[in-house]
């Protein structure tokens, strides 16, 4: 059994690294994570230090991407922005996956009425257009990083919940679960030992593919001024400043947009390749 798992893992890794886009995605994600972790050592200037004398400068050796309207170094703000992106993406995915797991497994394993009730809840949460819902919440509680995280968790629960439910349903009716049941296993044991590990793969892939959406949404809300508060540097707030100064300098837009595009691309390539590598059916096709 252990041999087989090792082989499976090796097969996945082999298939993953055979795909150029997957490798590119992996490298981009690593680069982004490392720059977020070591941001303090990379940035040449304090990203929130004002220097009005040197405002709105173009790129030079001392300021790689120039300075903004308050004289802050744009490159430093860009590097620090990766931190905000991850600060939102990680807790959001964790929160949404956890809640999605609980709801999905209850729906898939519990009685029919509970299943229907949870599906109705998931369908309802899914029926709010994300940005509109976000604006409604922000209008009430005011913009903050926590609000953004809360909003994205609530709107991504249905994605995970539905997948977990479907997977639970299909595993529940398989023969080995029947065998476990007939030997007197408790529901908790079946759920935790047998069903949970089997659902983990698809959910991990789904999470990798959801991260670009989350990072994009956070940047979008910060761009609208409904996310991270100034002076915290985020890609969205860089884009916001770039938009107001669009006729003065393109560098703010470049510093906010290019890393955002590259990161979302990186996570998407990573997720897609991972999906193809993990699924034996898709693996054969390629």
């Amino acid at each position: 059994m252990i041999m087989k798992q090792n082989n499976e893992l090796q097969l996945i890794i082999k298939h993953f690294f055979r795909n150029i886009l997957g490798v590119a995605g992996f490298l981009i994600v690593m680069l982004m994570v490392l720059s977020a972790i070591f941001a303090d050592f990379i940035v040449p200037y304090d990203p929130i230090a004002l220097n009005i004398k040197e405002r709105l400068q173009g790129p030079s050796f001392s300021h790689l991407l120039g300075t903004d309207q308050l004289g802050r170094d744009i490159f430093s703000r860009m590097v620090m922005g990766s931190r905000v992106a991850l600060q939102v993406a990680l807790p959001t995915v964790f929160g949404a996956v956890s809640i999605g797991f609980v709801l999905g497994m209850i729906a898939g394993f519990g009685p029919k009425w509970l299943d229907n009730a949870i599906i109705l809840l998931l369908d309802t949460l899914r029926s709010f257009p994300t940005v509109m819902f976000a604006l409604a919440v922000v209008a009430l509680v005011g913009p903050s990083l926590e609000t953004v995280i809360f909003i994205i968790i609530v709107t991504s629960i249905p994605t995970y919940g539905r997948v977990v439910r479907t997977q639970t349903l299909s595993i529940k009716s398989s023969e080995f679960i029947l065998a476990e049941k007939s030997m007197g296993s408790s529901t908790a044991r079946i759920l935790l030992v047998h069903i949970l590990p089997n659902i983990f793969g698809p959910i991990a892939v789904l999470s990798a593919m959801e991260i670009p959406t989350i990072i994009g949404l956070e940047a979008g809300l910060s761009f609208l001024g409904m996310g991270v508060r100034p002076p915290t540097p985020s890609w969205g707030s860089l884009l916001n400043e770039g938009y107001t100064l669009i006729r003065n300098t393109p560098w703010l837009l470049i510093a906010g947009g290019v890393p955002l595009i590259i990161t979302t691309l990186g996570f998407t390539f990573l997720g897609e390749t991972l999906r193809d590598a993990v699924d034996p059916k898709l693996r054969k096709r390629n």
Partner: protein
Amino acid sequence: MLGYIIKRLSLAVLIIVFAITLLFVMIHSIPGDPVSTMLGPRATPELKASLEERMGLNEPLPVQIAYFFTNAITGNLGTDVFTNRPVTSIIGEQLSYTLMLIFASISWSALLGIFLGCYSAIKRNTISDKILAVLSVSFIATPSFVVSLYSLLFFSVYLGWLPAIGAGDSDDLWDQLIHLVLPAFSIGLSWVGYIARLVRASMLEIMSENHIRTARAFGLPRRWVIYRYALRLAILPTITVIGVGMGFLLSAAVFAEIVFSRPGLGKLVIDSITTRNYPVVMGSVLLSTIIFVVSTTLSDIINAMLDPRIGRQL
């Protein structure tokens, strides 16, 4: 079939009712009350009380929800705090701009996406197919508001080819179309990728089916078979995706309207948030939720009509 339609429609109504209730409960469980948010910190208690009474906020929550439903059914979503105009008419004015934008975006992206998907499927595994595949993923992954910003920067600010702001003169059709180009491009770009991938996949599936092979075996020309028989079936999933994607389109429209300073639902909401015009925000959010639910329901029903197997699942 009728049974399915009735079931699906009642589910849609249930979801809308549930969504409104959920929104109400959420608003009330979140710290801070709408009246203080609207009037600001310096409001006198008397002023607060009078506004609370006007908005019915001093009633218990179930009563408020019941009030809201009875009003909403008659098309009354409350009144604007500042101008005292009915919220429905304010939203109505803006909605047409947003719907026009969404329609323009989805039209061009569906046309191009279907063409590219079809082309990729025919040229399967060639270099151009692979390039298109990478391009499609890239289009999907790029956030639409970044596309908006960069196309504004490039086509309006640098090249000066297209207008940067507004929706154009309402009497001048050409002017309106010109103003629609960049926003519709920005919203539609990711949909080109999405639809192309979808059409390619379903086209490949259909091309291997028996009736297509038979048609080819009868000696019908390849082109004829592709465009006459395969493509007609291959674009069916696109209908569903557009229906389900209405929520994403509405969200993308918010950004495009802000970036290009276009009138519309999104701009209305953002402006209402800055002026703390709470009834307008709630009305717009509810309306967009209803539009979203209606479009998903419609696409489900259309799909069930086209493919009777789906109808039996519910």
